[in-house]
C-alpha cells in the first residue's frame, strides 16, 4: 500500500511487505517525535476530512484515530452506531454512501462483520482504514504493536513473541501474526485447544497449549483479553482454570527472561489473563502501546491521504 500507493486502502496486514511495514514504522517514528513537541500538531492534512465510522463500540481506537487526524490538522466527523440512522433500519451501504456524499476524504471503519470495511471500500471512492472487523483484522493495532516492539528491541528480527489467549476469535492475533513474522519475528501462539485456530497450518506461527513450556524462551509476551462476549464461556471449563494454565501470574512473570516485555491490546482484565502486579510493572508496555497507537495511525492517515515530503 505504501511506496507506489497502488493500493489505496489499509484493510489487512496479510498482504503487506516488509518494505511497506518498515516505511510506515519509519514514518510513525517521526510522528512520535512530532507528538513530543510543545505544539504537537503538523499541517500535513489541513483541509482533509476524516470520518470515523464505528459500527461497533470502541473507546481507545476511536479516540486514537481522532487524535491522530487532529494532530495532522485534518477535520474529523464521527458517528456512533447507536445514535445513527442504522437504528432506524438504514443499511450499511446507504449509510456510507451518505457519509461520502457529505464530503469526506477517508473513512475509518469498525464493524462486527468480517470483511465489512472491505465491502465499504468497494462501495465508496475514498480510502478506507479497517479499524477492526470481527475476528478478522485490526491492522493499525499490529502496526502500533510493531512500533512498540521496535522501539524496545531496535528491530523485530529474531525477537520471539508469544501471543497468549483467544487466538481463534482475535483480530489482534490475526493482524499481529502477519506483521510480526513479516518483520522477522518468531511467533508462537499459546492457547487452550478450543482457542487455537482451526486449520491454522497456513499461519506463519507455531502453536502450543503448554504456556510453561515456552515461557522462558520468549522476548515478548502478548496477552489477549479473554472474550467472554464471543462465546468464551463454553470454550474452556472455567476462568479459574484458564488463569491457572494461561494467565501471566506474578510467578510466571518471575520466570520470564529478565529483559522480556509484556504487551496487551486492552482492555485488560486484571486477575484473569494478567496479574495486577504484572500489569503495573515497568516491563508492561501497555501505555506505550496506547501512545504509539496515535503515531501509528498518523502514519497510515498520512500515507493514504497522499501526504509526501515531511510531515
Amino acid at each position, binding site marked *: 500500500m505504501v511506496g507506489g500507493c497502488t493500493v489505496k486502502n489499509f484493510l489487512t496486514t496479510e498482504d503487506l511487505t516488509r518494505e511497506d511495514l518498515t516505511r510506515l514504522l519509519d514514518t510513525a517514528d517521526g510522528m512520535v517525535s512530532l507528538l513530543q513537541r510543545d505544539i504537537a500538531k503538523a499541517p500535513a492534512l489541513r483541509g482533509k476530512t476524516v470520518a470515523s465510522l464505528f459500527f461497533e463500540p470502541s473507546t481507545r481506537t476511536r479516540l486514537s484515530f481522532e487524535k491522530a487526524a487532529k494532530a495532522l490538522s485534518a477535520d474529523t466527523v464521527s458517528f456512533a452506531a447507536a445514535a445513527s440512522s442504522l437504528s432506524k433500519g438504514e443499511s450499511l451501504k446507504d449509510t456510507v454512501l451518505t457519509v461520502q456524499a457529505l464530503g469526506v476524504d477517508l473513512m475509518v471503519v469498525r464493524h462486527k462483520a*468480517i470483511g465489512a470495511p472491505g465491502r465499504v471500500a468497494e462501495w465508496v471512492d475514498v480510502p478506507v482504514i479497517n479499524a477492526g472487523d470481527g475476528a478478522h483484522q485490526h491492522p493499525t493495532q499490529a502496526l502500533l504493536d510493531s512500533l512498540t516492539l521496535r522501539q524496545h528491541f531496535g528491530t523485530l528480527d529474531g525477537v520471539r513473541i508469544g501471543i497468549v489467549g483467544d487466538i481463534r476469535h482475535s483480530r489482534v492475533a490475526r493482524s499481529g501474526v502477519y506483521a510480526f513474522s513479516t518483520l522477522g519475528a518468531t511467533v508462537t501462539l499459546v492457547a487452550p485447544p478450543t482457542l487455537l485456530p482451526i*486449520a*491454522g497450518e*497456513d499461519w506463519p506461527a507455531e502453536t502450543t497449549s503448554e504456556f510453561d513450556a515456552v515461557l522462558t524462551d520468549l522476548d515478548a509476551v502478548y496477552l489477549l483479553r479473554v472474550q467472554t462476549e464471543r462465546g468464551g464461556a463454553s470454550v474452556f471449563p472455567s476462568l479459574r482454570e484458564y488463569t491457572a494454565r494461561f494467565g501471566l501470574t506474578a510467578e510466571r512473570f518471575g520466570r520470564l527472561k529478565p529483559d522480556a516485555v509484556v504487551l496487551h491490546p486492552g482492555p485488560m482484565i486484571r486477575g484473569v489473563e494478567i496479574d495486577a502486579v504484572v500489569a503495573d510493572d515497568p516491563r508492561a508496555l501497555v501505555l506505550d502501546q496506547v501512545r504509539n497507537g496515535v503515531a501509528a495511525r498518523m502514519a497510515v492517515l498520512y500515507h493514504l491521504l497522499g501526504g509526501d515530503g515531511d510531515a
Partner: protein
Amino acid sequence: MPDFLFRNGTVLTSDGPTQADVVVSGDRIVAIGPAGDAHEHGSDARELRCDGMWIGPGFVDIHTHLREPGQQYKEDIESGSQAAAAGGYTAMLAMPNTEPPIDSGHLVRYVLDRGRQVGLVDVAVAGCVTAERAGKRLAHLDDLWAAGARVFTDDGDVVADAGLLRRAMEYLAQLGGVLSQHAIDPGLARHGHMHEGAVASALGMYAIPAAAETIVVARDLELVRMTGCSYHVQHLSAAATIPLLAAAKEEGLPVTAEVTPHHLAFTDEEVITTDPVFKMMPPLRAEADRAGLVEGLRSGVIDAVATDHAPHADHEKDVPFEDAPNGVIGLEWAAAVVNEVVGLEPVRFFEAMSVRPAAIARLDGQGQWLRPGGPAHITVFDPAGVTIGERSRSKSRNSPYLGRRYAGAVRYTMYAGELTFQESGVPA
C-alpha cells in the same frame, strides 16, 4: 397434424440414445424415427434443427425456492417459472419455507393452482415436516398428502429431533412419501457462516465442519432402517457423506441424494473475498469435497442435480457476508455448469437432470425417456453451445454465475407440446 419436428439430434429414448427426429403433435410425442424420415408425418410442422444436440426429457428441479406466498419481492411463481423454462426445466418442486410455510393442504393447493395458471412448467410443492416449520410437532401430513404433496422437508432447517423425525418417517412410510432432509447438525453449525477450513481460519469466521452433514445422514440412515421411509439428502456438500450413501444403496435402503451446481463448481476459496454471492447453506466446501461430489454424480451415488435456486433481493445481499442471507439463484445456468464441470455423457446427463429427480419427487409424467405416445416435455441441449451468465428472468440477481461463461447451452424447452423457451439467435 404434427406441430413440431425436432430434426436430427441425439434422442434420449427409452431404448437408449439414437440419432433421430422427434415429431410432436398436441402435448404428445407421436413419432421418433431415423433422421430424415419423420418429416413425412407432415410438411407443415415447425422444424427445429438439432444437429449435434441432445434431445431428451425436460429437466426437473427438485429444489426450488419460489418465495410465493409471502416473499414475492424476491421471486414469484411466474418469474420463477420463466427462469426455469429458460434453463430447460419442465418441472420443479417448490420448497415450503415460504411465509407462511407450506404446512397445510390449502397452501399446497394455492401453489399448485398458481403454477397451473402460469403454465410454463409443472409446479409441484413440498410440504413441511413440522408445523410452522418449527421443528416441534408434526405438520398436517395427511392433509398435505391429500392436497398433492409427495415430498416433505423443513428445508432451511434440519429436522433435528430424532424422535420427531422417526415419527414423521413412520407416517410417511405408510403414505408413500419422501422425507427430504436439510442435513446440517445445528450444534456443529451454530454461529457458522462458511466451511471450516483454512479460509475460515484466516478470516476468523465462525465455520461449519463437513461433519455437520455426515453426522446427520449417518443418524438418519438408522431411522430409514427402522421405518422403511424413503429418504432424500438435499444439497450434498461433503465428500465424506458419499460412502454412507453408497453403502446404504448397496444395502437396498430407499435412499437418494442431490447436489447443486454451485457445490460442483466452487470451493470455500471463493469466500476469501467475503462477497455474499458465495454464501449458501450448506457452505461451499474444500476442493477434495468438490471433487468427490463430481465423482459421486458421475457414478450415480448422487442421483440428481438440484439447483437450490434461492432468490434474494439486492439490498439483502449487498451487505457484509455474515449479515447476508444464504442462497444463490441458478435455474438458468445449471445445465451448462454441470456440463462444463462434470462433463457427463448424454444418458447420465439427462438421468441426473430429469429422470432421477422426477422419480425421487414422484412427479408423474415428467422425467420420462422419450417415446412415441409419451408426454412432450422436451429439452434440447447443445453441448457445443456457450452459456453466458447474463440478466436473469428471475426477480433476483444473487448468482455466482453472472459474468461467467460455461460450455453447453439449452436451445429449446418444450412443455406439454408448447415451446416455452428458445435461445435467442436460433433460427425459428
